[in-house]
């Protein structure tokens, strides 16, 4: 992700250590660096700006309490993103039976982007709405956060092979949803 700073190991470790000790400036630095990535993942999972904001702020509260338990500072990004994803997923699970797909709203938000690309986004949003929270989480961690299956597995308590298998199934399903007419020219 382009919004993640490139830090050397000692800088990351130092910042994590300070933040874990309660240093708010160091923690703020982590917020600056990782908030966008967490928000993007959370938004893809919940599909709602306010809910995504809610989930990410909860994730930061959790990160503050548990920072001292982070044993591998170099994995702080995936750790934070996974917390945000988990918060978003839990939010979505609460909403499972009351979710309303409002495509009118989606169309109203289209703006003036590339029409072809926008159609893909609307289709994607519609396809995501059909998926289980856990499935959206997997897709977001893979395609938005860019985590590999090993990282996803470590953070979700799954096996890497299980992650790959589920992702492959999800891709098949999305392919069916997004390309219902089969191969394109």
């Amino acid at each position: 992700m382009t919004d993640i700073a490139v830090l050397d190991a000692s800088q990351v470790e130092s910042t994590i250590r300070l933040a874990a000790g309660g240093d708010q400036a160091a923690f703020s630095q982590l917020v600056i660096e990782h908030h966008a990535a967490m928000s993007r993942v959370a938004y893809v999972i919940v599909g709602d700006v306010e809910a995504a904001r809610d989930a990410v702020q909860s994730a930061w509260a959790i990160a503050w309490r548990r920072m001292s338990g982070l044993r591998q500072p170099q994995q702080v990004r995936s750790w934070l993103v996974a917390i945000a994803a988990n918060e978003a997923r839990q939010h979505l699970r609460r909403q499972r039976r009351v979710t309303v797909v409002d495509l009118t709203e989606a169309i109203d938000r289209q703006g003036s982007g590339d029409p072809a690309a926008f159609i893909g986004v609307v289709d994607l949003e519609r396809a995501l709405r059909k998926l289980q929270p856990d499935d959206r989480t997997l897709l977001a961690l893979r395609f938005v956060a860019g985590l590999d299956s090993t990282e996803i597995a470590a953070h979700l308590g799954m096996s890497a092979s299980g992650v790959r298998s589920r992702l492959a199934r999800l891709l098949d399903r999305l392919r069916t949803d997004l390309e219902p007419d089969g191969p394109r020219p």
Partner: protein
Amino acid sequence: MNDQPTAIDPRAFEARLTTAFAAYADRAPVEVDAVTLTALVARGGMGRRRSRFAGGRRYLVPVLLGLLLVALAAGVVIVGSGLLDRRPESDTPQQPAVVAPSADPSADVTPAPVSEPYVEPTRQPDPSERPSADQPCPAMIQLLQIYGGTVEHVSDPVPSVGPVTGNGDILVRTIPEAVGGWGIGRFDPSQSPPAPVEIVDGVELPFQSAGVSSSIGPAGRLVASPDGRAVAFEAGDLGQAGCGDPIVVPAGNGLRRPFPGRAFETISDLAWAPDGSALYGIRRPTLDALGQPYTANAAQGTVVRWDATTAEATELPPGCEACSWLFVSPDGSRIAAEGNGVIKIYDAEGGWRDLTSGDRMLGWIDDRTIVTRLGRVDLDGGSLAWPDATRDALDAGEPLLSPDGTTIAVMAGSHDLKHRDVIFIDVRDGSSRVAWSALLGIDCDAAALSTRQRCLEGFFAKPGPDTVTDHARIAAWAPDGSAVLVLDVEPYSTEAALRVLPVDGSGARPKVTVRGPALSPTLNWSPSVAWLPATAP
């Protein structure tokens, strides 16, 4: 990437998908006032799960910011007038580490200084905090006398417990201090006074961390053999020689038996033949042809059979792409594995066939029938799709098939939104019945934004001894099928609530609370169905 998409090439589709995801994620609310957010977090202004000041509270945040500014101004005035002593130099917060927020050194952004009146130099320790699941966190084994609802502390510290063997021994993970790495021990709960945990294997194992998940212990599922004399666990590596082997450890005294594997491979979905004569698993490479770890692309897996006596490995043809969910039929003659929406059936003679499944195999009903979340499939032809109501329930939860293959149990939200129901599904016809319904307890202060208003209006019950959270799920069947275990662990909570629900309709037993993170991911009952092991701080 959108220029010439083709549905034939999976990589082209993934590229298009990545682009679409990026465009979709661009709608995310990425703006943040890091200093204010940090101050709120540090002050504990955010609830355990949801902040009452969370961004969704559109009006509270501006009000709070205003209050902060007013307080800041007041502080400046007071300090300026000499009425408030400044803290000693040694007590002032450390300067933040100077880190570059972007790759461009010229674009260095130093964090804004935190206003002193609102800075707490050190975080106050939270007594509820305990080591995370990936840390060695010694805990005592406790036996949950499940029908009596009592808890008994009986053993040496262990980080987590595994399955119970046929003779009632509990297999546990041993602590690093004792064995120099994660290992396996055995504990006999019948002895009084309690005997120490006997270490039966002490090598360092390549367990993965469970990361932020609080409900699952270290990965590497322990799978006890049917006779309880051995335990196998899953292993895998990215290149450490010898770490790609599945390992079988006699549960009694004896040498471990590494089953043949290869480096750069991983083993998963281990399952024993019912008679203990063989161990099955799915073996797949961890790196692709370019030496990169596999990610979303399905790795070509192979179902492997290890002879329990000779440890000889046999690959079952053909390969099984993206396979998982391996189950051995009750008579041991067939192995089913699911990958890419297809169930592959392997037989002992080397034959195989594909079944078009639905999604997510749950196990074998009998030697010729498989049950999935969508219905059941008969090897002799024919299938039965579940009724819509049943499919909805199975989609909403994490279903488990009973040991005798007659009933699926699942926990799902009720249609009135106020309860969570344990639903039993008869695999003969897919009919379902609500076996137990518990009120959903929601803490309004910690509720999500979209739930909070309804919560404040009194729609939901408040959390109490008789309520469940919306994370409650079916965790295990009793070995004799007489009851199910309802596990209720909120994310990041250090405690788990367990309830036993007999299938005879006599109602759920009282809730027992145990330490959550150390619970085994695969809870196992004792053979007598009288207790199950857990850990306690």
